[in-house]
């Protein structure tokens, strides 16, 4: 099948985003993936589902016209699917997770080690199969995981985690080093796996909203919007325009919060504690504003299917404008200080470099991708309302080092401030929420949102009586964690915290 024919043959899913969905066979799947990989497109997400007696593998690809969602039926007797990791290296961990959670295995080369499974359940049990009850408790076994050994004169290993030295999420990093120089980093994640996908199953569409906002707490607005889009797609609901504009306001405020926090920590990690103090005052100012105006510092549960739960009056708009002015003034000063600080720049420049060629090959995405020359931003390329009226200016850079990721953050802070001002100026009047209709079993709805870290996907498969049969949330960290392993090569161990922070990836969002 020709790639260009796909949107002609298969229907476009209802909803805000350009997404086409079709059922394909294994040969067509490989062929379409090959065309996308060679045509400059990318793998967005990969997940599986239990379809009673048989299974299905779902693959979301992004290409020029939008997203192609492919479903491959998988036999119950021979639960296998064609390996895609040769075309998209990022598919590797996603495929291994499908093997762990659902018992569908990639045929062909690649890495066959477990990924999300540690010792909480045995290898022949698969939590996302319908026959597996959520309350099933297996006795904990011994966890063993074969890290790739690095040998040679003077090579030794540094194991780090899962409990890290700072206030961050748990994960294990295995460094192989000579002296201070890193030869290889291997990540082992899955420590925060808490059964999110299984928990979604059987929830009503309404109940799922709260859980969707807690997949990765730092991206609560992004996930809530993506979830709302998926629900609105399967229920043929169109939220009122004012609600969409308020969602964009929340998404940009979330981007600002995270970027301000990261810029502070990036200063801290190069011993510029002044930067931490300054940026975290600004972040706190914004958090307090959110709390006062919208009732939650991180805007959790403010975006719901059908619209939003809070509105804005002119006094609130003035309060936001004032806070933004204050932030903008300070960030302008801080940007000059960061850019001109010899000590900071010495640590930022050429550190943790991912060149554009490698970034493209590995499928780096989101903010980190844009710092390595990969010009993807769904707000600019596939703008849903209100982004179709805001003309988002994408920030890109080509150096791919910590310095580039700092610059992209500064530029996105400026752009988000501009967007919030436009939103306040043009916010249409009217309702902020509408009723959500019913849905049929067997529907697929997909949400697609450019969160602060990168693209988020929420795929919703409906069951009986408006309930969730299967839900897969996809965080951009899936793509970017493996690239971090490359970014550190040749750098020194003490630069790892800095490089890691410059990506700032989610653990909870990928451990699920």
């Amino acid at each position: 099948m020709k790639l260009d024919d796909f949107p002609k043959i298969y229907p476009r899913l209802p909803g805000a985003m350009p997404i086409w969905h079709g059922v394909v066979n294994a040969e067509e799947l490989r062929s379409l993936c090959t065309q996308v990989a060679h045509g400059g497109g990318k793998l967005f997400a990969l997940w599986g589902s239990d379809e009673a007696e048989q299974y299905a593998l779902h693959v979301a690809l992004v290409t020029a016209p939008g997203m192609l969602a492919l479903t491959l039926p998988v036999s119950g007797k021979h639960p296998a699917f064609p390996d895609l990791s040769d075309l998209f290296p990022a598919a590797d961990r996603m495929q291994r997770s499908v093997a762990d959670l659902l018992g569908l295995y990639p045929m062909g080369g690649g890495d066959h080690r477990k990924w999300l499974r540690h010792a909480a359940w045995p290898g022949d049990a698969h939590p996302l199969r319908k026959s597996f009850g959520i309350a099933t408790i297996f006795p904990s076994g011994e966890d063993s995981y074969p890290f790739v050994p690095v040998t040679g004169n003077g090579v030794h290993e540094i194991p780090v985690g899962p409990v890290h030295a700072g206030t961050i999420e748990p994960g294990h990093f295995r460094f192989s080093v000579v002296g201070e120089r890193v030869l290889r980093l291997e990540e082992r994640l899955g420590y925060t796996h808490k059964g999110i996908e299984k928990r979604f199953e059987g929830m009503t569409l309404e109940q799922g909203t709260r859980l969707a906002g807690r997949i990765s707490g730092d991206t609560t607005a992004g996930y809530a919007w993506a979830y709302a889009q998926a629900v609105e797609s399967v229920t043929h609901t169109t939220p009122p325009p004012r609600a969409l504009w308020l969602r964009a306001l929340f998404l940009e405020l979330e981007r600002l919060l995270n970027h301000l926090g990261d810029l502070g920590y990036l200063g801290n990690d190069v011993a510029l504690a002044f930067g931490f103090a300054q940026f975290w005052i600004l972040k706190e100012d914004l958090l307090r504003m959110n709390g006062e105006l919208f009732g939650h510092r991180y805007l959790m549960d403010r975006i719901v299917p059908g619209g939003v739960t809070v509105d804005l009056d002119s006094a609130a708009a003035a309060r936001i404008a004032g806070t933004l002015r204050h932030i903008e003034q300070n960030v302008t000063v801080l940007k000059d200080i960061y850019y001109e600080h010899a000590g900071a720049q010495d640590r930022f420049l050429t550190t943790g470099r991912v060149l554009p060629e490698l970034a493209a090959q590995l499928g780096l995405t989101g903010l980190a991708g844009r710092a390595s020359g990969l010009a993807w931003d769904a707000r600019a390329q596939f703008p849903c309302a209100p982004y179709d009226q805001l003309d988002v200016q994408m920030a890109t850079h080509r150096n791919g080092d910590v310095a580039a990721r700092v610059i992209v953050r500064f530029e996105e802070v400026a752009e988000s401030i501009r967007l919030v001002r436009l939103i306040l100026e043009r916010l249409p009047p009217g309702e902020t929420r509408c009723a959500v209709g019913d849905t049929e079993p067997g529907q697929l709805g997909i949400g697609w949102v450019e969160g602060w870290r990168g693209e988020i996907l929420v795929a919703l498969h409906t069951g009986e009586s408006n309930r969730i049969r299967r839900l897969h949330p996809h965080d951009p960290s899936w793509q970017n964690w493996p690239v971090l392993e490359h970014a550190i090569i040749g750098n020194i161990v003490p630069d790892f915290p800095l490089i890691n922070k410059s990506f700032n990836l989610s653990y909870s969002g990928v451990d699920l």
Partner: protein
Amino acid sequence: MHQIIKQILRTGIKTEAPPQPDEALQLEAQRINERILHQIGRALAIRHVDAGSCNGCELEIHCLNNAYYNIEGLGMHFVASPRHADMLLVTGPVSRHMETALKRTYDATPEPKLVVAIGDCGCDGGIFGESYASCGKIANVIPVDVAVPGCPPTPTAILQGIMTAVSNKAR
């Protein structure tokens, strides 16, 4: 350099007064005697452990270090190892994959030690609950002195929980 100094002067001092302890947050009778608490008092070393949270609680714990809450100004600081810690500040739910690591961290913390559970999930398992992958609340895995609800609890609430754990009823 003069830009930095100018900006510091322009920003001024932001630090606010800390909250008072709240006995209602206390889960069990004081396990540590008053004299020791008095010793630890305001020079508390805290080890944070994320035992499986969504990272929402971590965002608010980070804020304790900002200039408004300025936890170090109170003499309390976050340490890199449980061996240096008087208190574990634990967010949850405890995933089954973190159960062993949490127990080991608890065992590595020298006596006398305090545990403060943070967030709705840390208090009762929250939205994730107990399942094949989750042990639920922190108290299901290690002893907890004080539990602070909220999703996520505000920095003030977290600070209040910490202060409660090191306060005593006589105060």
